[in-house]
């Protein structure tokens, strides 16, 4: 049992470290370190431009998507080398948040289903950040029932004509391309009538409306499709096989296990060390210590769980569904941590402005963002189902719509 790299891993790490040390935009390091829970604000700089510049620089040196094949812009790194890269990139990885969906989900799907010519054309600029991609899966009527989607694609000559609406599409407002799952046959059970495409987000008939969220930000969008035409050559996988194509996309996400999951704990520990309560520093209060200790072991438990997963990766094993626990544990923890940090501030905890609130309102921002963490990319409840069914082997939920043609599934509960 050890934390050591193999000689090859150590060699790769040394290369990565040296390159990052010489090239990373260090002027933003301090601000990036402080940024929490997806909120990266750089003073006097456009985050999008900084992010694209960093990604381009990495791409020119072959570090942008290290685990991709060379011909598509990568360097053919192994899964464990990808993890090492992420560890070494550290806080600078926060800059690349806007590329995660494209590189983590859309790229691998293109790699599995696009033609060779398409791959050579679309993948390198995706890897280098020149072109941003989004994933058009969720719909208003879908929620966790992803396969219940209603956006239609109808064949017309060599094209498909798309009508419908997607929602919760991260980054659609600055994306160049997207992968899109549609219903091509409503007369068969829901999983069997889906087909996947990719499209140019500037296509005629695509309308993008940012959604104002509970925390006041607008990171997600609604995307409307009105008679949007997609050539059949941009279909990914067979007609009616869209569900399996989308599973490829989702499975690939499990490979990104190296990145740190935000729990809010380091921030809370630091806060409690400096905050003065009536009787002295908060961290000397017995009740505070008990709370901190309980969150400390959750944070360290996640950290060492990821080390166990990395060890398995280093042995050449593939990550499994057990990696669902990261977001499940961290998601509710960050919400509880934020609530507790506000409580420690007493009546003043209600203030959220950077001038008035403790630590510039970091915990207030965390509080207002954290509900989304427990929903996006799989709700807590879906993650528990995944653990129960795929790790513990319990029976699947009863699905009354399983064998029912999609157009005969009821759409209203109390109609």
């Amino acid at each position, binding site marked *: *049992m*050890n*934390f*050591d*790299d193999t000689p090859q*891993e150590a060699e790769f790490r040394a290369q990565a470290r040296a390159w990052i040390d010489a090239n990373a935009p260090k002027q933003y390091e301090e601000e990036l370190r402080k940024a929490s829970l997806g909120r990266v604000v750089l003073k006097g700089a456009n985050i999008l431009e900084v992010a694209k510049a960093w990604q381009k620089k990495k791409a020119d040196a072959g570090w942008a998507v290290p685990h991709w094949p060379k011909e598509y812009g990568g360097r053919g790194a192994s899964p464990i080398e990808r993890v090492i890269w992420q560890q070494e990139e550290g806080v600078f990885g926060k800059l690349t948040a806007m590329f995660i969906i494209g590189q983590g989900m859309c790229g691998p799907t293109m790699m599995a289903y696009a033609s060779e010519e398409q791959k050579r054309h679309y993948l390198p600029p995706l890897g280098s950040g020149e072109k941003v991609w989004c994933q058009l899966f969720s719909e208003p009527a879908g929620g966790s029932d992803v396969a219940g989607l209603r956006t239609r694609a109808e064949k017309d000559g060599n094209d498909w004509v798309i009508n419908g609406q997607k929602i919760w599409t991260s980054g659609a407002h600055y994306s160049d391309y997207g992968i899109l799952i549609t219903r091509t046959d409503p007369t068969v059970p829901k999983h069997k009538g889906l087909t996947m495409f990719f499209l140019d987000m500037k296509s005629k008939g695509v309308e993008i409306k940012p959604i104002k969220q509970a925390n006041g930000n607008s990171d997600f969008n609604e995307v409307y499709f009105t008679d949007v035409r997609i050539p059949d050559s941009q279909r990914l996988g067979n007609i009616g096989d869209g569900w399996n194509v989308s599973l490829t996309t989702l499975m690939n996400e499990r490979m990104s296990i190296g990145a740190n999951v935000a729990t809010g704990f380091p921030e809370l*520990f630091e806060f409690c*060390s400096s905050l003065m309560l009536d009787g002295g520093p908060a*961290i000397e209060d*017995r009740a505070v*210590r*008990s709370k*901190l*200790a*309980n969150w*400390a*072991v*959750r944070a*360290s*438990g*996640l*950290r*060492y*769980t990821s*080390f*166990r997963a*990395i*060890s*398995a990766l*280093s*042995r050449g094993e593939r990550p499994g569904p*057990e990696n669902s*626990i990261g977001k*499940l*544990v961290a998601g509710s923890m960050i919400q509880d941590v934020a609530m507790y940090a506000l409580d420690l501030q007493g009546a003043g905890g209600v203030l959220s402005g950077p001038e008035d609130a403790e630590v510039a309102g970091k915990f207030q921002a965390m509080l207002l963002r954290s509900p989304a963490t427990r929903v996006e990319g799989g709700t807590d*409840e879906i*993650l*528990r*189902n995944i*653990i*129960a*069914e795929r*790790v*513990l*082997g*319990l*029976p*699947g*939920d*009863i699905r009354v719509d399983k064998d029912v043609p999609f157009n005969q599934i009821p759409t209203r509960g109390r109609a």
Partner: protein
Amino acid sequence: MNFDFSDDQKQLRDQARRFLAEKCPPKAVRAVLEGKADYDRDLWKGLAEMGFLGVAIPEEYGGTGAGHLELCVIAEELGRALAPVPFSSTVYLAAEALLLAGSEEQKQKWLPKISSGEAIGTLALFEGTGNPSPAAVKLAVSNGTLTGTKKPVADGAIADFAIVAARSGNSGREADISLFLVDLKAGGVTAKPLQNVDPSRQQAELTFAGAKAEPLGAANEGWSILSRVMDRAAVLIAFEQVGGADRALEMGRDYALDRIAFGRPIGSFQAVKHILADMYVSATLARSNCYYGAWALSTDAGELSEAAAAARISATQAFQHCAKQNIQVHGGMGFTWEFDCHLYYRRSNALALSLGSQSYWEDQLIDRMRKKNAA
């Protein structure tokens, strides 16, 4: 990175699991629980023959000298099987104290007997309600003899010798405390078994009336030795807890697959699934914290005290959570004497208190994290 046990260690785990499945079925645990014996002598002998008692004791003292990672592996299996034997008091506490602070003569005398199963040892620290602290030690030493009472002492009435924390000064500080080794069969000590929440493991009161005591380790350094022993035992007991948590989770899972209600297995209901998923989460977090503890223990790393506290807290939570929810998944059957759920429930709560309360370890963890951050 290879943050996992080796293939040899995994083989040892399989070997220990097979051995315990045969020699330590629930029936054997119940025999002790129901008072038919004070511990399972056959199992104890078997553990000695397998070399498990001396797995972390060097060969020169009769052990196999394999190491502490191997001991962690065995601890987990003993926890799964709820082994009704004085393993933790003898091996994690007494043997570790001897290895850390014993004189050559003491090691020569006791460690081979521990390895061979001839001697049972224990640590006598607590004096009634409360957490470990120098001020709570009232039992006093004078002219090489001890006077006072210790309770609860795990396996106190079946132990051959005890490591005893005694007061050698009156400042109320750590320097007042020294450790002594007492041969419990030599007179001057009376032992009384006490009722406790887990009768498959014995707790006793030891009354010392002028009992002859030989120093263990340097005078006035008892507390710092104790702290190190407690940290090491915390990691090892945490592995027992993880073993117990995993078994309770398995029992709940198996029952949820078997038991039909409303026309389908109860494990297909989301409410039951989510109970089991949460049990898995707590057991997994605990296991990962324990692995870190095992690494720190086996390398004697500077991080050991922090890692031990984290493993201890996490594993206590996991075992209590899994044992409690296993009963819930079983419904009314879970509360019957006949089902084994209560055996795990009892053990989880007994182990939770075996080295002081959760709040004590929470305090320790935060202290250690602060020290690290300050450094």
